[in-house]
C-alpha cells in the first residue's frame, strides 16, 4: 500500500501533465470526429471514410510502408547496435553521435542528395553501368524503394538506441558461461543475445512503425504517385477543406488501429517470453 502511494508521487506530475497536453486534446479530437459543424452528434464522417476507396487504399499503403520501413530499419540497425555494444564506453559515445547524423540535415536537402545518388543518372547507376559495361538505369527514386531509403535513413537511430539499451543490460557472465560451455558465436547469438534483446527490438519496431504512420514529407519527396500516406489526407482535410470532422475521424481510426496493434504486440511478447528464457 505504502509503495503504491509512493509510486503515485513519482508518476503523478507526469500523469497530470500528460492528461492536460495529451488526453484533453485527444478527447477533443474524438469529440470533433462525431460532431457536425452545427454541433449535432453524427457518425457521417466515419461512414464517408469507410465507403471511400481513396481512404481504404491510402490506409493500406500507410500500413505497408510503415511496417516495411520499420522492419528494414531493424535489419539495418540491429548490427549497428550490436557493434556499439561491443565498444568501450568512450568509443561508443562517439559512435552514438554518428548514429544521429541523419538528424542534422533537413529532408529537403537530403532529398536532393538522394536524387544525386539514386537518380537515373545518379552515382549508383553510373557505378553499376561502369561495372556492367553497359548503360544501367535502375529505377530507385519516385517509387517504393526511394521511400524506403529515405525512411530507413531517418528511422535507424530509433531502432539502434532501444536495442543498444537491451544489449547493454545483458549480464556479461552469461556470455562467459556459454563460452566456457563451448558454445560457438552463432549459437550464443541466437540463444542469448537475440532473445534477451527482444524487449528493445519490440520497443524499437513498435515506435518506428507508429512514427512512420505520421510521415508525410519523405514519401512526398521520394515516392511515386501511389505512395500516399494517411497524413497527406489529414493535411488535406485540416488545412485545405477545413473539414476537421473528417480529419479527426481519420485520426481516431488510425489511433484505434495502432492501439490494437500495440496491445496485440504486448500480448504476443508476454506469451513468447514465458517459457524457458532466463530472466
Amino acid at each position: 500500500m505504502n509503495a503504491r502511494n509512493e509510486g503515485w508521487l513519482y508518476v503523478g506530475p507526469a500523469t497530470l501533465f500528460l492528461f492536460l497536453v495529451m488526453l484533453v486534446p485527444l478527447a477533443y479530437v474524438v469529440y470533433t470526429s462525431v460532431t457536425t459543424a452545427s454541433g449535432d452528434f453524427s457518425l457521417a464522417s466515419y461512414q464517408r471514410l469507410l465507403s471511400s476507396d481513396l481512404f481504404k487504399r491510402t490506409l493500406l499503403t500507410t500500413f505497408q510502408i510503415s511496417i516495411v520501413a520499420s522492419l528494414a530499419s531493424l535489419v539495418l540497425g540491429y548490427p549497428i547496435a550490436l557493434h556499439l555494444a561491443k565498444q568501450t564506453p568512450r568509443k561508443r559515445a562517439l559512435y552514438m553521435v554518428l548514429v544521429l547524423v541523419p538528424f542534422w540535415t533537413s529532408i529537403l536537402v537530403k532529398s536532393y542528395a538522394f536524387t544525386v545518388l539514386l537518380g537515373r543518372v545518379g552515382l549508383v547507376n553510373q557505378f553499376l553501368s561502369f561495372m556492367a559495361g553497359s548503360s544501367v538505369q535502375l529505377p530507385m527514386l519516385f517509387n517504393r524503394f526511394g521511400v524506403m531509403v529515405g525512411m530507413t535513413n531517418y528511422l535507424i537511430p530509433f531502432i539502434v538506441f532501444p536495442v543498444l539499451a537491451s544489449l547493454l543490460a545483458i549480464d556479461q557472465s552469461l556470455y562467459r558461461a556459454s563460452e566456457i560451455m563451448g558454445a560457438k558465436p552463432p549459437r550464443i547469438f541466437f540463444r542469448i543475445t537475440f532473445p534477451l534483446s527482444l524487449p528493445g527490438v519490440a520497443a524499437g519496431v513498435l515506435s518506428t512503425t507508429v512514427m512512420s504512420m505520421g510521415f508525410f514529407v519523405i514519401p512526398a519527396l521520394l515516392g511515386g504517385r501511389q505512395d500516399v500516406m494517411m497524413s497527406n489526407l489529414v493535411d488535406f482535410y485540416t488545412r485545405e477543406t477545413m473539414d476537421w470532422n473528417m480529419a479527426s475521424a481519420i485520426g481516431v481510426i488510425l489511433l484505434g488501429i495502432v492501439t490494437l496493434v500495440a496491445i496485440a504486440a504486448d500480448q504476443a511478447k508476454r506469451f513468447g517470453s514465458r517459457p524457458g528464457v532466463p530472466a
Partner: protein
Amino acid sequence: MSSNSQLNPGRRRFFQTTGAGAAVAATTAIGLPMLAVPRRASAAERLVVVSWGGTYRTAVEEALVRPFEKEYGISVTLVDTPDLAKVKAQVMTKNVEWDVFDAVGPMAMTGSKAGYWEPLDPALFDQKDLIAPMTKEAVPFYGFTGGIFWDAKKYPEGKAPQTFAEYFDVKKFPGKRTLRNRASETLEIALLADGVSPDKMYPLDVPRAFKALERIKPHIAKWVDQTPQTTTLVETGEVDYSYTYATRAKASQESGKPTQFSFKQNLIGLEYLVVLKGAPNKAAAMKYVQFAMRPDRQAALMNLHGNTPASKKARGLMKPEISKWLSDPQNKNNLLSNDAWWADHYDELTLKFKEWVLS
C-alpha cells in the same frame, strides 16, 4: 522600435509625450490603472502580418514592413506561413491574433466561403489599376507565373516544349516530365494542352481534362508535392522538362544553372491579401493592405521576389532585369486562374484528382 524613433523622431516624440501625459492624467484621476494606458497606446500602433518564410520574408520586410513602420509609426510583427487551419482555430475560439494574411488563391476563396475575412473597402484601391478584379474580401496582391522549364545545355532552343500542347506531345519531345500533385493548375494545363482556348477555359471541362491527363500519365516521372523539386529535378537530370514558376526559374539561373523557362504560354495564379475577421488591429491592417497595393511598393516588392505586380502601374517602375521575368499581359495564350470558380469545386476535384493519381 528603436529604428522607428530614429527614423521618425517627430511622430515618436508625439506618441511618447501624449502617452506619458495620459498616464499622468489617468493616475492622478483614478489613481490606479497604469496598465490600461500603455496597453491602449501599444494597441494603436501594432500590427501582425502573416507571410511566407525565407527570402520571401526578407523581401516583404524590406519593401513593405519597414517603409510602412516609418510612414505610419505602426510597428509590424511578421509571422511565417499563412495557415488556414490556424485562422480557423483563431476565429473559432474568438482569440484572433493575426491581422493581415497573405493567401494563395484557393486559400483566400475557401476562407471567404467560411467567413474568416473582413470585407475590404473598394475605395482603398485603384480598381482600374488591378490586373484582376478584387472580391468583397480579398484584393489580388500579385500574380505568379507557371510555365515550362528545362536544361538548355541538354535541349537548346526548339528542342524543348514551350507550350502546354508541346508539353503533352511525347512524340515530338520525348522524355520525362513533372506536373503538380494537385487538381488546380494541373487540370488547366491539361485542357490548354488539349486545345481549349484560354478565354473559354472556365467552367473547366473536367472529364476532358482527366482524359488528356490519362495520355500524359505514363510520362510523368514525378507528381510534385514540394515546390523546390520543380526545379531541382531538372537540374539533377532526373527529368527532362518540368512545370515550375518564373521565380523558381530565376533563382535557378541566378545560381549559375544553364536552365531556361518558357514565356510562350503561362498559367498565372493569384496571391491575395485579406484581413482576418475580428482582427485586433483592423484599422492598421486596412492601412497596410492599401500601402502594399501602392504602385511604388508593389514595384519595390516585386523587384525583390520577381512576381508580377497586381498593380499595372507598378510594372513600369520595375527594374528591367526583373521585368523580363514577368509574364506578358498581351500574350493571348496565357491563362489567368479563376479562383472564384475553384472555390466552388476545389474540395470535390481535389479528392477526385487524388483518387485518379492513385489508380
